């Protein structure tokens, strides 16, 4: 530690500040670079998924979700392309197959090779140039909570339309970006609710939560509570609507009261002059007071007092004529 000889000069302070800013900027840049995700290979040019169908079948007893993912892929590029499909973390029993469709008609053929590594399935030479193919991937994911599983779907290609299927009944599904409406279809005797999402961007993570709805189970209400009154606030639909209506009525009443009050207050009723002449005199007096207070400029003052005076004189003359 050096001995402090005196207060720093303005230049020293400035240098010190600049140094601090530079160090801060370097640190920020370095930390940003370190925190950034590793570069990822770009998806094959011209490859896109025209339809993604994901069937999610929960098996609560074994606490797993069976997933069947069917991708309809087309390749608009000039050369055959490999395909890469990500599977969620924790997925097991991963299998994949490709059936290719040529330009002259559907020609099913297996992909040359399928490899699975680090949660990614790589299908070599899966889709020919100018052709389309159907990729089928199956896997199983374990429950990540007591009642369900969270799965993150990820594709390196843009998806035109994605569909999620879940058996109707005891299961619930939630995911961002789903369309407003759902449909139901029957497949192999099992009814599925179909959720859809258009235009999934390439490389985006799409979290999907599947939940088993709780059951009353063996602890279903027994006879021991019969006869006991249900206490607590009435939350029935009718009570709810009645309260809502009452609240709206109150708001409307206050609104009407406010408007009536404003209208009445802004009408010169009470204290209203008995005659027009009296009203004109009061207005004139007001003009004089405003001028004295410096509120009215001279032009405005002259214009307004002349108007009032003319009207008063005209009234007086009219009165005289009537009297005559």
């Amino acid at each position: 530690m050096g001995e402090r000889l005196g207060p720093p000069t303005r230049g020293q302070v400035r240098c010190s500040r600049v140094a601090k800013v530079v160090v801060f900027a370097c640190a920020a840049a370095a930390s940003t670079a370190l925190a950034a995700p590793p570069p990822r290979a770009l998806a094959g040019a011209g490859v896109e998924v025209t339809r993604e169908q994901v069937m999610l079948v929960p098996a609560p007893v074994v606490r797993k979700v069976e997933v069947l993912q069917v991708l309809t892929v087309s390749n608009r590029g000039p050369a055959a392309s490999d395909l890469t499909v990500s599977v969620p973390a924790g997925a097991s029993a991963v299998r994949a197959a490709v059936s290719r469709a040529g330009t002259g008609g559907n020609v099913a053929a297996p992909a040359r090779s399928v490899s699975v590594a680090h949660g990614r399935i790589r299908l070599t030479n899966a889709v020919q140039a100018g052709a389309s193919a159907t990729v089928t991937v199956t896997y199983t994911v374990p429950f990540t909570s007591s009642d369900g599983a969270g799965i993150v779907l990820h594709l390196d290609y843009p998806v035109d339309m994605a569909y999620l299927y879940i058996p109707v009944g005891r299961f619930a599904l939630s995911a961002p970006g789903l369309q407003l409406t759902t449909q139901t279809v029957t497949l192999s005797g099992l009814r599925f609710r179909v959720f859809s999402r258009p235009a999934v961007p390439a490389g985006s993570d799409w979290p999907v939560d599947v939940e088993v709805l709780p059951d009353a189970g063996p602890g279903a209400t027994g006879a021991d509570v019969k006869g006991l009154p249900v206490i607590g606030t009435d939350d029935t639909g009718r009570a709810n609507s009645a309260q809502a209506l009452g609240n709206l009525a109150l708001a409307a009443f206050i609104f009407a009261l406010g408007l009536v009050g404003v209208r009445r207050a802004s009408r010169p009723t009470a204290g209203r002059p008995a005659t027009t002449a009296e009203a004109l005199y009061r207005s004139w007096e007001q003009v004089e007071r405003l001028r004295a207070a410096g509120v009215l400029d001279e032009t405005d003052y002259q214009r307004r007092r002349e108007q009032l005076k003319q009207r008063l004189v005209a009234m007086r003359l009219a009165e005289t004529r009537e009297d005559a």
Partner: protein
Amino acid sequence: MLTGTIGEWALRLLLPAIASSICVHAAAAKTGSPGWRRRSRQVAWLPFALAAVASAALICLLVREDWAYAYVAEYTGSGLPLIYRIAAFWGGNAGSLLFWVLMLTLYAAVVAQAHHEDSERMLPLVSLILALMTAFYALVVNVVANPFARLPHPAEAGNGLNPLLQHPGMTVHPVNVYLGYIGFSVPFAYAMAGLWLRRTDSVWLTVTRRWTLVSWLFLSIGIVYGAHWSYEELGWGGYWAWDPVENASLLPWLTATAFLHSAIVQERRGMLKAWNIVLITLTYLLTLLGTFLTRSGVLWSIHAFANGPLGIWFAAFVGVATAASAALIAVRWRTLRADRSFEAVVSKETGFMLNNVLFLGSTFAVLWGTVYPLVSEWAGQPMVVGPPFYNKVNLPLAVCILLLMGIGPMVAWRRSSAPAVGRTVLYPMLISTGFGLALSGWLEHQYHHQSALGTAGLVAAVFVLWTVGQEFVQAVRARVRLTGESWPLSLVRLVSRHRRRYGGYIVHLGVAVMAIGIAGSGVFHVDLEQQLRVGQTSAPVAGYQATFAGMGVEQGPGTRRLYANLVIRRDGQVLGLLRPAATFYSDGQQPTTDVALYSRPLRDLYVVMIGTSQGESAVFDFHVNPLVQWIWWGGYLFIAGTIVSLWPERRQLAQATWPAAAVLAPVTTAVDGSDAADLYAQWAELEYDHLAGKVPPDMYRRQRDELIMRIRAMDAASIDLRTSLESEVEAAVQEVRSRAAPPEAGDAALGWGGGRS
């Protein structure tokens, strides 16, 4: 489809209609001619008519559930009750903006028809400012958030209103907040118009008092309903989380409350002119900031609309409004000098000033906490501000405000003395301390919590109840002495003839009752989270015990409601069944919890089922919230008091109520709103303070003599002025007559001129 097309066209025509009304208002303001002024009044109805057609069309579409429109499909769904389909009008972003336009155009049309002092000059400017504001919102609903946008293909079903929003409180919470926000545009427009015209006396305050009060009431109701909804629906056991959007509604309420009080000082004493202009400007700007925070998505909140493109629009509008109003205030600063200064350190005026400082202190603390996450994010270190910060800053301020509310009514206008105030405050304070400590002790004994601040809050609230009650008793007693009426009749007539004052006192009572509820539930609440197996009984919570008797399922259309049966006992006695539940939706919506609430005057038992396992066990969150119902009752009292203040009254001369008129008879030229009427009102106030023992006798006599002298001088000046004007008119009449006489007398042209010097 025709309905939607009509609505769409009405919305499109709104922009040219507003543009033309801006031109007409500007011409009326510039020329001041009666013709343009008349057209300015008439044209104000056109934007309202178009906005009303568009709104009616949207409501029709919502009621009919026409899912060809994106807004309708997003906010309605099969099975949604009619009342919530109507409420969906203001439930979403685009619809609520159309509602905003509807209300703003209605307010502008009503304002344009007013007649008041100097309305010829003020109204065109006020209408112009309101039309400029409306133009912004009309532009937004046409360009960015059009509620009539159609889907490429009609949806087969609607999304349905979020189940959390299907609550009676939530039906009107937004509409009340919007009405509050929108209403403050009118006093702000008047303030700016007055400033432009150098009319900085209390005319704009008198004219806009009702607008301010109505807006403030709506905002207050909105805040209370919001808290009620949060309490009953969100299932966390509380009612106020200092959420950014909650804060956004509180901020303008705080400044508006300060403004309501300081406006009284300007109306009575001609002081705090600049302060009032700044306060109403701040209130208006905070409503804009609240709208920006809610609609931009810059801060996350359960109340906020999803991220959208509106943020930049509102940010720009806030910027322009701030710059324009600040510039006008700066340019006209000299005209904002007070008519007189404070006469004494201890007076009602200084009490109001102190109250304002406390409200503003609270405002800036809440504002800083609300925007701090944004500021810290820009600074590179994102941080959030939690409830402890807000509570630590605001609760002591709230206790001080309560104490001032109690002391304020006991202090006289203009001049009082510390010993006099001390004498009047001493016994109420001692009694309130006794009651407050007893209440706090009872709560501590029941719930085993201690808090000095909570106890101080209870003491202060009881103090307010006592002093306001005493104020009623003293005033009725004084009236009975003067008029010989019975006590009940005297009370009714007293309140009826002084609605503003006694309505305000009822509001103070409401606030004190709410404060007791807030202190009780905030400090002394007890909670317990416990997992119970079927047949198991919970640990005691403030005397309550629950036995888990099993579960049941109710299947609804698209929902599955799982409820638990809890047999509730208190002190060993069975009270009945409580049914906390969870509802699951087949359309992908997040499950919701249904709170089971057993409300009693002294405490609420609040139970939430937060998890289950195979139907054999469940996790429950038990809360016992003491005195929480007092908050809602206080809210109702608050509403009642404001309604009393708002109730239209016959306007009377102040001297008609007090014997003062007899002293000055037959000089009765004072008309309501004039300076002389203000002096009479001050005299009436002085007599009242004297009878209530707030002013020492010598001070009373001195002030009374001074007022009588000023009234006489003012009346004499009025008579002189009138005589002079009448002579001038008479001279002009004679001149016209002489010119109208036979040809030699000259032509009949009117040729007077010259002004008074």
